[in-house]
């Protein structure tokens, strides 16, 4: 097969952008049929998907597994640097492109039915195209400056989509929260950019990475820059302590949660660390921080997932927890381990969210206490959701198992404490997701809606996504995924699938997951142990967890209201009013006095004008002649 042409590589992100440009002007003034808007959007992302597949094959065959496409110059400071908008395609970006386009494609098809009766149908597809285009741009950019711009653009589209139903106060609040909290991370990203730029004189990713390897950049500068980049990743990927926005982001339409807040945008943080990995490797301290934050977040969010009543919130905390495992994987196992996890997670987590959307379509709620017994009325949804749940729990031979094994193995080899965190997460994950499965699908229906299976337009994308949820992990069975990054293929396919089972580690993780499922079964199906009893027995712990470790209260009441609002802002306000405004007022009055004087000098008398001009010329001449 021929290698893909550069124009077509550009088309991968320009097509969704074009779809956005076509749809956005139609948002308001044309009542008529809304349907066609989605054709543009879906057609664009579908084409991008096909091109991404081709691109992946081309990258595989390219020299050095890397394609660099030169783009236009964006900014040219005379005598200074050039900022060229080039594209960098390597296994990392090619895999990410595939994930984003595939999930976006499926989600958009699903959305046609899910958003069917929404009056803002066109706006929805415009935003989602904008998101896809910005996400693809983020992935492909070869310069951190453009990565940052697209980073902000995905933040913007995320904001727009979380607040999509802007008539709900909760949606507005959630959108604002997401925007503000990710902003804290973005400051870190920006600081890292400034630091790198002032020390290396460039923001070109390849140059930066190689200068980290050759120790042109080193020491505290490098560590600080890496930590700054990681702070950006922490914000975007909802890691502790900047995770609080992600559960609230579930206020957006569910397909959006599937695409942005589960599969793609939140993985941008993982991608960024993977992108700058040589820099992190050269700063071991920063890389350790990545691992510790990841491991802590994984357990921390997993525990909160245990007690949530809202199905989407469980999934949201699950996402945070799994993203933590990805960072852990990056830290202990290198780029491919983290990205392999990301790759598998994207499909099954998107499927879980689409399943939740399908359930919501039938029951009209996300509260699991009003569900139950859905397996009979919604068999397809049940099957798909359960497959994804098994994959998430890491049950052999589904996709999730393989990537989790790699993280566990790498963690065990490096640091037993991190491994313990990872195993604990495995247990928690299996428990909370099967708690969901059992509460939703088993037993009797507790709600009052007339249940029905979702339309085909929603089921088909789910069934298609079920395939990678089962099988995407097999891509590495013969070491192929690892080989894409590391350049060598190790063993045969069947050996990869079954050979893992001969290893005791696999049985430890399967045991942990099995235990989680078993306890969920005991508690929610057999009800041998009543959940309420545990609540009573473990009241203090339960209280801590249901209050999400009081993180929201910490931010809102303590930091925002008490410390910032009553403390810092009051003080700032006083300084602003008395000192700054005082100075400014004094200045403006002086300015006004001068302005009045000066404008009165312009009295319309020609003699004066000529006099001032000629006198001025004579004075200048005098000065020139006398110096």
């Amino acid at each position, binding site marked *: 097969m021929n290698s893909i042409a550069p124009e077509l590589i550009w088309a991968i992100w320009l097509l969704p952008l074009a779809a956005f440009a076509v749809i956005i002007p139609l948002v308001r003034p044309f009542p008529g049929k809304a349907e066609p808007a989605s054709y543009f959007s879906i057609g664009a992302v579908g084409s991008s998907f096909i091109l991404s597949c081709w691109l992946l094959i081309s990258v595989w065959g390219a020299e050095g597994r890397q394609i660099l496409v030169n783009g236009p110059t964006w900014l040219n400071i005379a005598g200074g640097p050039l900022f060229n908008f080039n594209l960098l395609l390597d296994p990392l970006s090619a895999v990410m492109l595939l994930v984003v386009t595939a999930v976006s494609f499926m989600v958009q098809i699903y959305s046609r039915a899910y958003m069917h009766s929404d009056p803002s149908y066109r706006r929805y597809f415009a935003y989602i195209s904008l998101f896809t285009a910005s996400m693809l741009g983020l992935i492909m950019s070869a310069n951190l400056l453009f990565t940052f711009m697209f980073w902000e653009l995905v933040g913007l589209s995320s904001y727009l989509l979380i607040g999509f139903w802007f008539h709900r106060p909760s949606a507005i609040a959630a959108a604002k929260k997401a925007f503000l909290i990710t902003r804290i991370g973005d400051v870190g990203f920006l600081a890292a950019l400034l630091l790198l730029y002032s020390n290396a004189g460039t923001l070109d990713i390849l140059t930066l990475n190689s200068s980290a390897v050759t120790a042109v950049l080193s020491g505290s500068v490098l560590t600080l820059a890496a930590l700054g980049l990681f702070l950006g990743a922490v914000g975007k990927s909802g890691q502790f302590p900047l995770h609080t926005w992600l559960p609230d982001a579930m206020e957006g339409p569910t397909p959006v949660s599937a695409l942005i807040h589960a599969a793609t945008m939140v993985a941008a943080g993982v991608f960024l660390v993977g992108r700058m990995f040589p820099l992190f490797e050269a700063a071991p301290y920063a890389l350790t921080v990545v691992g510790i934050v990841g491991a802590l977040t994984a357990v921390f969010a997993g525990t909160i997932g245990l007690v949530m009543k809202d199905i989407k919130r469980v999934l949201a905390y699950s996402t945070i927890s799994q993203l933590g495992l990805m960072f852990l994987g990056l830290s202990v196992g290198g780029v491919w381990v983290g990205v392999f996890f990301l790759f598998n997670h994207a499909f099954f987590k998107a499927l879980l969210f689409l399943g939740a959307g399908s359930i919501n379509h039938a029951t009209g709620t996300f509260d699991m206490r009003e569900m139950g017994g859905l397996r009979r009325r919604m068999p397809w949804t049940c099957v798909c959701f359960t497959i994804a749940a098994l994959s998430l729990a890491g049950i052999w031979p589904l996709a999730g198992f393989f990537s989790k094994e790699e993280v566990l193995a790498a963690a065990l080899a490096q640091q037993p404490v991190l491994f313990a965190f990872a195993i604990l997460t495995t247990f928690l994950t299996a428990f909370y997701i099967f708690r969901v499965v059992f509460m939703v699908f088993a037993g009797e229906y507790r709600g009052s809606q007339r249940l029905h299976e979702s339309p085909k337009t929603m089921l088909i994308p789910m069934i298609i996504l079920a395939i990678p949820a089962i099988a995407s992990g097999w891509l590495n069975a013969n070491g192929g995924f690892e080989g894409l990054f590391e350049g060598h293929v190790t063993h045969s396919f069947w050996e990869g699938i079954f050979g893992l089972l001969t290893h005791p580690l696999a049985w430890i993780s399967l045991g942990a997951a099995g235990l989680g499922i078993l306890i969920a079964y005991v508690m929610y199906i057999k009800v041998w142990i009543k959940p309420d009893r545990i609540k009573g027995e473990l009241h203090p712990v339960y209280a801590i967890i249901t209050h999400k470790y009081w993180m929201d209260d910490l931010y809102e009441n303590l930091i925002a209201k008490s410390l910032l609002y009553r403390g810092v802002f009051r003080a700032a306000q006083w300084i602003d009013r008395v000192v700054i405004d005082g100075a400014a007022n004094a200045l403006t009055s002086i300015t006004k006095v001068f302005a009045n004087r000066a*404008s009165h000098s*312009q009295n319309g008398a020609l003699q*004066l*004008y000529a006099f001032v*001009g000629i006198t001025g*010329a004579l004075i*200048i001449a005098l*000065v*020139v002649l006398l*110096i």
Partner: protein
Amino acid sequence: MNLDMLRPEICLAVTAVAVIAVDLFCRIKWLVNITSVAGLLASICMALLLIGNSEQSIGNGLFILDNYAIYFKLLFLGIALLVILASTDYVKRLPKLHGEFHALLLTATLGAMLTAAAHDIIAMLLSIELTAISLYALVAMLKNTKSNESAVKYILLGAVNSAVLLFGLALIFGFSGSTSFTTIAAAVSTIQVGNIADHAGLLFGLVLTLAGFAFKIAAVPFHMWAPDVYEGAPTPITLFLSTVSKIAGLSILMRFMLTAFIQTDSLINNLGIILAIVSALTMTAGNLIAITQHNIKRLLAYSSIAQSGYMLIVVAVAAIGLHSAASISNLLYYLVAFAIAEVAVFSVIIIASRNADMDDISDYAGLAKRSPLLACAMTLGLLSLMGLPPLAGFMGKFFVFSQAAQNGLLWLVLIAVVNSVISAYYYLKIVRTIWMDAPASADAVKTSLAPKLALLISCTGILLLGILPALLNKAAEWGSFLALWN
């Protein structure tokens, strides 16, 4: 005589005559507009075809053809085109002067083009006068008291200025014995810091000449004519004065200075300091006085004076930083950014005043409700003039200020930044009036197609150059090659 290198100018001159003929013999008034637009487009094509020609002098050294000249020619033609497009409705207020309006606008543009290419003091003076005399008539065209007053003031002060300029040029000719820039440069090169007194006459002539140019760009202390004239002139002419006429002055100032003083580093350094001071005074005076204005055209006149101050930064840098090409290319960028923003803002005023003058800022209250398009265009234009990212004006200021800071003019940059803050006040005052205040009447402001086109082009330009500055970077770098350097 290789006159074929003057094809754009010849084409424009022919068009001007054709416009008068059409106006005389044809009853369909819009044919006049069509003819002038067609002539401008043809001239633009011819100017584009000149790109790639080697540098050469035209008419035995009277004019010169270099990248710098072609860049300015294209700029003037483009602005003139936008002015004519924007004023298609406005000219209906001048029923009997339809043809004259267009013809004189074309000759004024012709003068500006020749000014940018002049390489000889006689050719230069004639070109400048061609623009000026066309504009004297244009300013008077409304035939009301205000317009007449403006025209008289403009003619009188223009005459004084011409006298100063001529006196300066006469001294230069007398002491150097030549009218050619090249020979003058050779004469100037004999001046050293130690022997200034020996060459007092020549130096006095040079200063007077520069003062003459400074009048054209309304630099302090030669700026006082501008507000009075801008206010009374028909608005399209105000736009033309503030863009083409001013930029022509700046183009010849830059060329004359760099050509004549090329071999006298110490002298040009001193001159650079004086220019920097003039620049600081100009921007400060412009911005300060603009604050108190209520008439929008008068306010923009002061704003335009302040903008001249920013442009003079580049001229000062070029003098001090030993005529580096980068500084000229920054100026060329800034001029385009400035011109399209002025076109956007003034086009709105032109469109709004199609029936009667809308000169008071309060007339624009609630414009956003009456015409969102006009309100958006005006806001974009004002914000670009103010220098807000991501608009063209921001990139322009960014390039100019950073270049100045690198060449040791940090104090000037600081003054310029403070000035930008002051300017925000009056620019935003208009923006607030447009968007926040209640409209005086609910009638929509009518716009026909051609002015909309002018708005569209200028607004696209403002956004595009702000977001993708590299688009113009290359052209500006190309345009910064003056003939003398080879």
